[in-house]
């Protein structure tokens, strides 16, 4: 089977999964959810008013029609309009994507490089003091709630020390930079613990493999062993881990965007929740799922390309 057949088969399998995702979303938002008309009008709505709103929102049509609607929106990426702002949702998403990426992009880059570098460092000096220290720091970092970090960080570095912008945003490069420095910095701190631990585990798994012993018996130095032998083998699981994080970048950061007033997709989701804006939440759920599935396929394809044992003939 060649690579194109493989990709095609995976894309094909994506369809029943996407249908399933739409089903879950549909069940949640069209079945289980409280009546949005009631939410809008409160207890004072008359029966006619409720029926009117339900009709406008298309909620009085048969269930299977509503389900198909959800499916249609998934395949055409037409999510309709926001109930709160009447904007076209796809447009909103396009507008919010860039600000979100201006934070998550650099965050992802810096975090990954830092974590891998740290992991290599402690794998090289495994068992020594620095290994234990970084491990302790990592576990500690993993245990602090991110909201606390954002709140405290914003207050301390932005307000108290006034080193950084507290909030606001300007689009366009490089104008956005001063606004994203602090959130990026804070989230690097939040994330590095878990990432470093993961990469450390991956790298250490390789370090204890037999082929490393062989490399040593050839007379290679520990540095060469780490950077030539161990790293290349480690890159396989590390790469897959990296690729799979990319689809999450568009979700932005719910906390940071809210508190730093950055008009990204995270803030959009939070606003939607506060405004009971069903279609926006639905849209983000579906869109992020699609990205996730696509990148899942990408990851597997990358795996087959990078690992000689997995090369498809």
């Amino acid at each position, binding site marked *: 089977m060649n690579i194109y057949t493989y990709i095609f088969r995976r894309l094909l399998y994506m369809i029943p999964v996407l249908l399933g995702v739409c089903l879950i979303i549909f069940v949640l938002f069209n079945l289980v959810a409280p009546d949005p008309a009631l939410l809008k009008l409160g207890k004072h709505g008359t029966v006619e008013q409720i029926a009117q709103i339900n009709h406008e929102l298309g909620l009085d049509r048969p269930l299977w029609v509503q389900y198909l609607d959800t499916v249609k929106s998934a395949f055409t990426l037409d999510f309709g309009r926001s109930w709160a702002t009447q904007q076209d949702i796809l447009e909103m998403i396009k507008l919010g994507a860039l600000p979100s990426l201006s934070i998550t992009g650099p965050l992802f880059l810096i975090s990954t490089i830092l974590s891998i570098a740290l992991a290599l460092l402690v794998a090289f000096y495994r*068992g020594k003091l620095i290994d234990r220290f970084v491990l302790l720091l990592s576990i500690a970092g993993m245990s602090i709630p991110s909201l606390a970090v954002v709140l405290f960080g914003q207050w301390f570095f932005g307000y108290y020390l006034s080193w950084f912008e507290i909030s606001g945003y300007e689009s366009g490069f490089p104008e956005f930079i001063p606004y994203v420095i602090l959130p990026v910095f804070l989230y690097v701190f939040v994330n590095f613990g878990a990432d470093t631990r993961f990469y450390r585990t991956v790298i250490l798994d390789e370090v204890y*493999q*037999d*082929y490393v*012993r*062989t*490399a*040593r*018996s*050839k*007379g*290679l*130095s520990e540095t060469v062993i780490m950077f030539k*032998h161990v790293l*290349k*083998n480690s890159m*396989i699981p590390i790469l897959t881990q990296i690729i799979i994080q990319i689809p999450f970048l568009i979700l932005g950061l719910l906390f940071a965007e809210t508190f730093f007033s950055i008009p990204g997709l995270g803030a959009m989701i939070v606003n939607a929740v506060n405004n009971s804006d069903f279609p926006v939440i639905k849209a983000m759920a579906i869109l992020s799922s699609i990205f996730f599935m696509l990148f899942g396929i990408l990851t597997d394809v990358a795996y087959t390309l990078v*690992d*000689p*044992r997995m090369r498809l003939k």
Partner: protein
Amino acid sequence: MSEKVLEVKDLVVEFRTDRGTVKAVNGVNFEVFKGKTLGVVGESGSGKSVTALAIMGLIPNPPGRIAGGDILFNGKSLVNLAPSEMRKIRGNKIAMIFQEPMTSLNPVYTIGNQIEEVLELHQPNLSKAQRRDKAIDMLRLVGIPSPEKRVTEYPHQLSGGMRQRVMIAIALSCEPDILIADEPTTALDVTIQAQILELMKKLQKELGMGIILITHDLGVVAETCDHVSVMYCGQIVESADVRTLFKHPQHPYTKGLMESIPSFDSTKGEKKERLQTIEGMVPSLFELPVGCNFQTRCSKATEDCKGAKGEPRLHNIGNEHTVACFHPLS
């Protein structure tokens, strides 16, 4: 008379563990000569692999260290050598192959690359093309068919036997003075075993290196070794040339090992007997008995063996045959 390449003198290797410090190798002596094969025999845990790692300078520190004795390579001491100096010898003058060919090669580099790596490290004056040619030559030398094609393949495309051949090719590419083979055939099928051992003998004739063959399999020893040292609990209990050892074993442990080889010999005239085993189990290195380490399993043990006379030392009983026992068998 062959040239002596290696001399191990009173080697002691310690490991620090949660339960205390233990001597995995406790006073080991042997010599290796060019063109000759020394067999080091013993059960798991006898210290044979640790001895090999010590010679290669690969004892992980922590938790292990060479605590005593010396290792002389062509007269030069290896024990206190700086790590950068030792790296020049490793893979170059002294090479090692291991037990698990399936996992000993790096899965993401080609075979050619892995052979060329050693050449690049120790013979830097070779050009890339020369390295490639040498790699192909080595593959041919170890009996791998179509070496020009194989050289660009990855380890997972080869069988276990072939991978072990590649390991040998890597080990011998710089024409070392000593090849250490730690249970090289244990993980392979019996038929492949024979092939690999044949190959090693042939290469020894061609290249003239000394071989240290570590194994628990006496059959292998009989086939390939010139001289044998038997290890038990980190010490050598008997040492002799191969014929003498098999014909006149002196140490009760050696005798026990010989007798536990299943025999298909129906011409013996006796009724086929049950498989002989050595009673008891190898004592834990943390709880060695006072006196002779073998006393708990020895049919000939007396009061002398329990500490009154100290530990038995290796003494010569003629013809380079040494044994460490208070009551050798003859």
